[in-house]
Every structure is written in structure tokens, then in C-alpha cells.
């Protein structure tokens, strides 16, 4: 049973090996002569001003990520629901329950929409 997952592990291992091997072999073969203007970031020919990693990102990214997580969890519950829908004995109940579930989360989506959390400023 578990052996059926071995190809997945082998693929992950092979891809990781390949990625590391490409970097390693190219580090052996490429010419290395770094100098100041080659190492500086290129911004359409402008002189770069300041650093990129001092928190220029908006808090808006955070709210989009939170909404993404919540609807990701919702889809996670859709998988077992979709599988048991073929079972006649509980399918009606499960169908109604899932729509209540989605309905409650839709309230949150409408709230987010109304508050302007989905607008990109």
C-alpha cells in the first residue's frame, strides 16, 4: 500500500538532486569575474535607491492571504463531501449542510467585499 507512494518520493528526490546538481556543475564550469557594476541590481538603467527589503509591501497582501487561507480550508471540506454524495442514505443531508456551510462563509465574503477588502488600491 505504502509502496505506491514511493514514486512520489523518488520524483521529489530526483528533482531536488537535479536542481542542486545543475547549480553545482555550473559553478564548476562558468567563468567567475565579479565586479561592482555587474553585481549591482539593474533597474531600467536607473541608479537603484535604497533597499528592497525594508517593508514596502502593503498590509493589503496580508488580508488577501487570510481570505485565501479561509477559502482554501473551505475547499478542503468539499473533498470528503463530494466523495460521499454518491451515498444515497446521507447525500440529501450532506448536500443541505454543505450549502449552509458555504452560505455562512459567503456572509464573510460579502462582508469583506462591502468593507472594500477586495479593492486593490
Amino acid at each position, binding site marked *: 500500500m505504502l509502496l505506491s507512494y514511493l514514486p512520489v518520493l523518488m520524483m521529489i528526490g530526483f528533482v531536488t538532486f537535479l536542481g542542486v546538481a545543475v547549480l553545482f556543475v555550473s559553478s564548476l564550469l562558468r567563468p567567475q569575474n565579479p565586479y561592482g557594476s555587474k553585481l549591482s541590481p539593474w533597474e531600467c538603467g536607473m541608479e537603484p535607491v535604497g533597499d528592497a*527589503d525594508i517593508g514596502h509591501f502593503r498590509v493589503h497582501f496580508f488580508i488577501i492571504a487570510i481570505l485565501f*487561507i*479561509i477559502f482554501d480550508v473551505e475547499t478542503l471540506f468539499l473533498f*470528503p463531501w463530494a466523495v460521499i454524495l454518491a451515498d444515497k442514505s446521507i447525500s440529501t443531508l*450532506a448536500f443541505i449542510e454543505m450549502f449552509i456551510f458555504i452560505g*455562512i*462563509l459567503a456572509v464573510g465574503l460579502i462582508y469583506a467585499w462591502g468593507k472594500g477588502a477586495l479593492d486593490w488600491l
Partner: protein
Amino acid sequence: MAEKFFFLMFAVVAVGSALAVISLKNPVHSALSLIACLLQVAAIFVLLRSPFLAVVQVFIYVGAVMVLFLFVVLVLNIKKAQLETFPKGRRWFAYAIVPVVGIEFLAVIFGKSFTATGYEAAVEEVKVATLGRALFTEYLFPFEVVSILLLAAMVGAIIMAKKRWD
């Protein structure tokens, strides 16, 4: 036997990457180590015959939660976060709490609660249909409570972030 080898492989990498999360200075490197750690935990879930949980681990934690962590790291000032270490005044508190939690964990692992109640390792794979049937019969009410919990999280996050973008 082979299973034990794979478990040890995943467990050692998981503990190693978890140590990297707390010891690396750059928060982006810490976040990437946490991705490696969560992937190992997903592999351990496969070994425990719960492939659905393993996929969920990759879906939710590696896919969504880590995106959130990286966005938070980007909103922060990485240069400043790199310089900041754990505040000196609170260090004794951390040193005091680590042995307590450690002893607690060891007591749970080696205590009777794991073995005496007869939790046997699952031999068969847990099927998604089994999960679904349990979710929509036995755990129907907790399932609906989850939607309220998610709604509260969504509204709370919007209210907290709204102060920043106004």
C-alpha cells in the same frame, strides 16, 4: 523495517529544519525551513496511512499558511528584524518554560495515555469516504461550527487590517 528507516529519515529532517527555523537570523530563510519541515510532516502522515491529511498538510500549511507568513515577513522590515534578537529580559522566562514543556511532552509520550487506551496503528489506509461519512453523521455539528470559526477569523482579520489601510 523499511518503514522505520523512512520514518527516521523524515523525522530527522523535520527536527533539523525545525531547529533551522528558530536559529536562522533571516526571517525569509526561517520561513523556507518551515516549508521543508511541514513537507516532512506530510510525509510522516503518509506513513501513518492518512494520505488525505498529508495532502491537506501540503495544501493548507505549505500552500496557504506559508504564503501568509511570507507576506507578513515582506510587510515587516527584514533588515530590522534581522538585527533584533530575543529580548534579554524575557530570556530567563524562556529558559524556565522549556524544561517544563519538555518534561510534559516526555510524560505524555512515555506515560500510559498513549498505550493503555489501545490506540493501535492503522493498518489500512484511511479513505476519504470514511472521513466524509464521519464528518456528515457523527461530527455534523462541529463541522458547522467550523464555518462560524472561519467567519470570525475572516471578520477579525479585516477589522484589524482596516486600521492600517485607512
